[in-house]
């Protein structure tokens, strides 16, 4: 019986190393593209060149050109920065709200916990994409609106999960032990409860980036986010959707970039979870 955890903690390591290599490579590529893409990109991708529009993939343009004659591959690479930065900003913003709500709920008086959780319930029961769509539309269609809208609507799940984990941690015997030894409330939260609860937040932060990228591009696609000349991937697809049947590559490339980003961060989240989960960790 004492054996079961020992076995579980050892087996995943092998799998992770293969999966890990792939995921690290993808993340490295994405980060590299976000950091250096805009610097390295030829200036031509910002200008339209109608003469060379909608060219199929060739040696000069590996993924073809769009309706304005701009290189699709370079535009996708350049778009990485917009997309990743926006997603990170969104997830960080609503994670902070979530942590604040969860911490207040978990450490505050019962009625406050109850009230905050009811509000969170409401947030959970509303379809976040629709609400974000409403907000973004009301703020006026732009990338900033989409970012603000998603930041406002994304926190409830984080808050709920973190609060539940913190409650669980507070039930742990070692927290009672810290009480008995006489630690202050502040030390109890910062040294005992939070460090043992934040793993879930790190995991969620990471894997949420993938999902956020998708919603962000969806909002752009529907017209309330980034607007077409932008290199944001959703906006690129929205701009290219009229040419699907004549120039499929204009839609294909940004979509694949989206899929890769969302898969990579989703898997990274899984990996961090497997790595940080104490029950999966080795006992020696």
């Amino acid at each position, binding site marked *: *019986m*004492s*054996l079961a955890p*020992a*076995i579980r903690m*050892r*087996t995943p*390591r*092998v799998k992770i190393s293969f999966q890990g290599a792939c995921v690290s490579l993808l993340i490295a590529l994405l980060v590299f593209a976000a950091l250096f893409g805009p610097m390295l990109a030829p200036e031509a991708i910002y200008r339209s060149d109608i003469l060379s529009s909608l060219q199929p993939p060739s040696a000069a343009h590996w993924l073809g050109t769009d309706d304005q004659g701009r290189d699709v591959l370079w535009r996708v690479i350049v778009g990485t920065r917009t997309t990743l930065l926006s997603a990170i900003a969104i997830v960080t913003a609503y994670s902070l709200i979530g942590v604040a709500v969860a911490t207040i709920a978990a450490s505050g008086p019962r009625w406050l916990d109850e009230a905050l959780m009811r509000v969170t319930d409401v947030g959970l029961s509303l379809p976040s994409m629709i609400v974000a769509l409403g907000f973004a539309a009301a703020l006026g269609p732009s990338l900033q609106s989409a970012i603000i809208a998603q930041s406002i609507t994304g926190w409830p799940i984080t808050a709920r999960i973190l609060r539940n984990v913190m409650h669980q941690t507070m039930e742990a015997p070692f927290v009672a032990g810290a009480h008995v030894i006489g630690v202050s409330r502040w030390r109890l939260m910062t040294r005992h409860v939070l460090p043992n609860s934040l793993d879930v937040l790190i995991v969620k932060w990471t894997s949420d980036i993938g999902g956020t990228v998708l919603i962000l591009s969806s909002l752009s696609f529907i017209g309330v986010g980034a607007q077409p000349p932008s290199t944001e991937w959703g906006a690129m697809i929205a701009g290219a959707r009229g040419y699907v049947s004549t120039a499929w590559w204009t839609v294909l490339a940004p979509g694949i970039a989206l899929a890769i980003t969302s898969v990579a961060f989703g898997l990274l989240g899984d990996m961090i979870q497997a790595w940080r989960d104490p029950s999966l960790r080795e*006992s*020696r």
Partner: protein
Amino acid sequence: MMMQPNPAGRPAPVPGEAPLLSVDNLCVSIRVDDRSVNIVDGVSFSIRRGERVALVGESGSGKSVTARALMRLERRMKATGSIVCDGRDILKLSDGEMRRVRGGTIGMVFQDPMSFLDPLRTIGDQIAETLRIRGVSRRDAERKALHILDELKVERAAERLTAYPHEFSGGMRQRVVLAMALIGDPRLLIADEPTTALDVRVQDQVLALLDEISRSRGLSVLFITHDLGIVAGFADRVMVMYAGSVVEDGDVYSTFAAPRHPYTRGLLDAVPRIDRDSDRLASIRGTPPHVFARPQGCPFHPRCDRAFERCVIERPVLRELGGMRVACHRPEPEAAR
């Protein structure tokens, strides 16, 4: 039945009779990373018909894995050696034949009755399932379930059949688990720490029940436990496991009176007793080794006061010694106490 209980309550051995279960050089291994680790490391023993054998050990000793290997329930582990039960080698059976053995020839009772019951099915359903699997009609299976609950002294058994596990107390649940194991009329009952999760008084009742049933049915029992008190009260024979192998095997009276393996001796001295005062417990130093970090040579040598060079190098095999079997290079003297 053929055997007569002797005054001490255990069946006299019948010469020449084939044992119900004989296990020979059983190894159970698991793959970890790229190597295979033996959790059970060459265990051999046999159980006669009607005999009640206790398998004692601490955590990581491999006692539960041994028990489950007898039923081929450890799916991610590989078992080698031979397990002959009622004339058939368990390890060579097809999956279909094995299923007939499970719940048929061999019944099994587990430690924590709550976690071993399906929370979504009624008690009656779960007891009858053993028979339903074997094509018995629902009505007959339920009648048999009722009958067996009566045998296990469950009051108002008929109403209980339609209840769910969460509506039962711990002792009642353990009876249900027992009923699940007994309804297929097994020859061998494997009980894996069946009373560890229970309070002492309930434990006492369940043990008495198990005692009575195994006697009246002539059932062989393999009782896995860490509690030497239960061994003394219930078993005819005791096998002590340490780090994957049996280190001592003998009848309870001789073993408890004069254990020959230093580990058994240490265990007996380390247990506080309800029936007498003591100033200080003798303790074994160190801790039982983790499955993945078992010492070379005799696995007990780092904790043993009697160890000498040979123990470090050579792993002792289980050998016959004055009517018992002991795996030790330097066993305790015969009349140690």
